[in-house]
């Protein structure tokens, strides 16, 4: 049964997922090409100075990409369910209604996390090709909150989409905006180091929100 649900989720999101893979590859290749172009046109030491001393974040074009990935996959997964009220059918499967929903967001969350993890690994490879490990470490710490925003964005978008009443949706959107905005602030590199763990804990709070929306959806709140 769980396998079947996973397959159904995959069918819904595969094209969006593919689009997001293309976006991630495109962004990464673009950053790698930018760096290689810079290294050819400038003296390498000047590029290093720019990145290390002036703290130029060569990866800053990725700031909102994880958020885009999270939101897009949640929309692809839950909008079809809501529009045709198909979710009600899913919730009648011989599994607890919460279990079905949790399995759905669990599967989607893993897909988002997996893609983001691959993206992070790809960026680490790019960074290590041109810079010492210290630069790569600072890049990972700087991008970590953006990637966290991608995961939080996924779970909160799912919660917002499934919620049946528009007024409540607006409130949830405000919550999502307030929380996710805090993860993509324009601040110094590695600035989130002291608070990252707290933000991870707060992101955990977003994971089961969809259960509340799903409960209201099933009850037919209008």
């Amino acid at each position, binding site marked *: 049964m769980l396998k079947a649900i996973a397959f159904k989720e995959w069918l819904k999101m595969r094209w969006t997922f593919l689009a997001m893979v293309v976006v991630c590859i495109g962004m990464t290749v673009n950053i790698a090409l930018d760096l290689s172009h810079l290294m050819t046109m400038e*003296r*390498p*030491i000047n590029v290093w100075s720019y990145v290390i001393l002036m703290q130029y974040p060569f990866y800053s074009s990725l700031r909102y990409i994880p958020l885009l990935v999270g939101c897009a996959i949640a929309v692809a997964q839950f909008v079809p369910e809501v529009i045709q009220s198909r979710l009600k059918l899913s919730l009648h499967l011989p599994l607890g209604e919460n279990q079905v929903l949790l399995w759905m967001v669990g599967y989607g969350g893993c897909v988002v996390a997996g893609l983001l993890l691959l993206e992070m690994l790809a960026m680490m490879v790019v960074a290590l090709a041109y810079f*010492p490990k210290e*630069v790569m470490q600072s890049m990972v710490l700087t991008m970590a909150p953006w990637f966290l925003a991608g995961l939080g964005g996924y779970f909160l978008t799912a919660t917002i989409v499934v919620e049946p009443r528009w007024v409540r949706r607006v409130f949830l959107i405000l919550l999502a905006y307030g929380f996710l905005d805090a993860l993509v602030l324009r*601040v*110094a590199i590695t600035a989130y180091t*002291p*608070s990252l763990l707290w933000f991870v804990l707060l992101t955990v709070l977003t994971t089961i929100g969809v259960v*509340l929306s799903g409960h209201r959806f099933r009850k037919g709140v209008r």
Partner: protein
Amino acid sequence: MKTVRLARIALTVLLTLVLSWVLPHYFWKAFDISIRPPRVSYSPVQNSFLLLRPEAKSVRYVDPAGKEYTREEYERLLPLTNYRQLAASGQMPDSLRGAKLDLKTVQLNNLFLRVMPADIGLPQIPLYPLVESQSGRVRLEMPNDFFRIGRRMEFMDAATNAVQESKSQEFTDTLLARGFAFPARQIAGNPTTRKPFDEGYFVVDANDAVFHIKMVRGKPFCVNTGIPAGLRVRHMFIMEMGLKEFYGMMIAADNSVSLISYDSYRLIRLPLSRYDAATCALFFGGDLFYRTITVQSEGWLETVVTDRAYAVVDTYQESWPTRDESTAGAWAASLFPFTFHLEDEDSALVDFYGQCGKWTALWGMLLFLVLLLISLRLRRKHVRDHLFDLVLVAGTGIFGLLAVHMIPSPEE
């Protein structure tokens, strides 16, 4: 149903926290007040303090007694800081306090250093360029590598992104021979080529000893400065200045501030009593005759003037009402039982900087609790079904009240 309740609790708690930084943020965006501290200078002409007071639309030039000056009078009383303007208008005096003034001497002796709380603990990538300090060229030139000091001193070549083995080994051997204990705890320098000359880096080793490391004609230069390890360096600022009186400034763990002098690294301790590196800005100004050191924090400043031997000549203090003491501050302290802000002007880091409200916030919290009870009554809900809401609002006031109304309860 249990999971649904849990989901609601998770979302409500998250929203409460988000509101506790979003609401105060917008509150202060709407009601913030501008506080403009004065700039304190010491006139070598009349041996007294002069204040530049920025106001909403103008600037006032006054002395501590309140006497007003015009801008021109103010500049003539501070000829050393305003020498360019005075020279341009032909008003620069030929001599002052028995010393002949020429522009070059004035310029050489004018110093300015500023240390803001956010400068300390500023995120950095621990890689540094080591400039050749005696190349024989007029201008300093960037090397082709950056170094790190971990288990040894390693130079990374930018073109190949690989360790330069022989150079790394040579520097590591010299450091070891001078008694350096790897790894480095702190590396302070002025990594730019836009300076008159290069003094390399001051490095705190694993035993808290401070070493001076630079490169002279391609060879490593490394000496133990003898700065006592017991001081425990909190931060160092190195800045090459033509006057060559000191290498830079050192702030110790006990908030004492010293200059590292060119006289075999002897420390010159600045006569400051209220300085705290976490919350105070430090302005250090020097001219031909005096050193003017200002410590400024929220609501107060203290300026100490010393002679060139760092003996205190005069002091000036001033305080002003802070934002928290304003009417808006009183409202905020009653409205919000606590607040968070993610960005702080005293730090470059994002963190949950918390602040507690005043005891008046208790009335606010009581009010919001009553509002919750009224709201429950109007919606014909039982209090016993909403114990979580009750506890949340009792503990977080307005944030909780808004959150429990924005996130629907499962029973709705």
